[in-house]
């Protein structure tokens, strides 16, 4: 496989210069994600306003894939509802695990396509968890609320 398929410019850009990389002072929800296999750690902060994700950010350290995935996720999720976020995660998860059986509504198509560069990990099974770590943390944040939680990749 061509290395550039996995490490596309957009991934290197977001991996080396992650967006929304800071703590969120007004977070209503947050959670820690930890991949014990490689030691990657990410904390995802969410500010939920009614049924809208007003703001989302992250902090942490890890490989280019995990950092780029977290960065792209925060850009995409701003302004979405938790249900839309869930649909995006489901379709993303299906794609990175080599399935393609979870589609998103037309309104989310553009956002789903922005995550396309990350789906190259599907040929590297050991790296799938790097791409999904931030999403798992986001999901755990919404579930746990302001008390925080720690989610581990299995």
């Amino acid at each position, binding site marked *: 496989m061509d*290395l550039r398929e*996995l*490490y596309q410019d957009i991934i290197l850009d977001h991996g080396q210069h992650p967006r929304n990389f800071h703590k969120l002072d007004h977070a209503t929800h947050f959670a820690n994600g930890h991949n014990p296999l490689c*030691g*990657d750690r990410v904390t995802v902060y969410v500010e939920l306003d009614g049924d809208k994700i007003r703001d989302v950010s992250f902090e942490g350290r890890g490989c280019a894939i995990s950092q780029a995935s977290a960065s792209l996720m925060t850009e995409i999720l701003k302004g979405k509802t938790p249900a839309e976020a869930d649909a995006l995660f489901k379709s993303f998860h299906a794609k990175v695990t080599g399935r393609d059986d979870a589609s998103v509504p037309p309104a989310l198509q553009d956002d789903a396509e922005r995550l396309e560069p990350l789906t190259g990990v599907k040929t590297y099974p050991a790296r799938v968890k790097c791409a999904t770590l931030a999403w798992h943390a986001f999901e755990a944040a919404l579930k746990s609320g302001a008390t925080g939680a720690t989610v581990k990749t299995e």
Partner: protein
Amino acid sequence: MTLDPATLRRDFPIFANNPGLVFLDSAASSQKPAAVIDGIANFYRTDYANVHRGVYRLSARSTELYEQARARVARFLNARQESEIVFVRGATEGINLVAYAWGGTFLKEGDEVLLTELEHHSNIVPWQLLRDRIGFKIVVAPIDATGGLDLAALEKLISLRTKLVAVTHLANATGALVPIEAIAPLAHAKGAKLLVDGCQAAPRLALDVQALDCDFYVFSGHKIYGPTGIGVLYAKKAILDAMPPFQGGGDMILNVTFEKTIYQGPPARFEAGTPDISGAIGLALALDYVDGVGRGAILEHEEILTGYGVDRIARLPGVRLVGAGQQRLGILSVEAEGIHPHDLATLLDAQQVAVRAGHHCAQPLMERLGLGATTRASFGIYNDERDIDAFAAAIQVAQKTFKR
């Protein structure tokens, strides 16, 4: 007496079945020669039956092969007698056995177990589990600024409270060689026992447990060109004699009634249930293979490759070798500036270079070195300078990929 990796490589079917593979992860697990693979299959085809049980001749033959394997290991380690060799699943089980049976009997509150910062989790966690039950103290000897064990600091930490010094022979995360010969007299002078984790040393060094004067020595079969699921615990006979059983079951008893059970002597006392018979026989074949190649030649080969690798990496801009003290053997742990080890390992994998990336089950050492993870290349008898060149070239491709 030098060995020829290109010739030896033909003994390992994995390479014919994976053309172009540059395998640099023998510290995690080595590949297996055909002599081991076929020998195990042949044993199942011609001589297999359960051991120590049957009165029939086939079982007697299987038992003889199993016990010959024990004698083979005793010879490999230069143990005084075969009964000092206990077959276990691997070094991890060996250390857990010592912690449970020896530590659980002889350690008490107020005692100290001395570990080092170089240890693999398998030589840390069993002692923590036991400490939480008994309440002794775990003391940790530090590394020095170069990454080697600080022997002077270790000496100061050994006291009359120290009941056990448990130390690696060769650090799996960095390749730092530990001078066991120097530690044994220090431990024994204070009445402490010495346990050595020989996982990385056994495939690379000639071993003599009598000369090392260690009380316990453990290693895993799968890292020394043998099968998975088998390993060795060596312990001095007098110590094994004083230890209660580890697990209860068949084969470890002399007589059982519901009121009282009389146990076997060592080593049977520590091998409850049907053992990994084919694993032990496969391990003996692996040791035959290693001795056939020659342990002197293997050490020389590993030293040459290590030296070559150190020089090669020193000439790579943006790549730093993680320190391993005064003596490094068979293992090179590197950091590439601006590239996370997992990205690096994936980029190397795409070029057919197989290495390990991560904390190498030595998180306290990584923490001490200020690293989350490293990328590790480790050598076996089938590796040569071209593999190291391929490793270096693949790193440069990775750097280009990341800096475009």
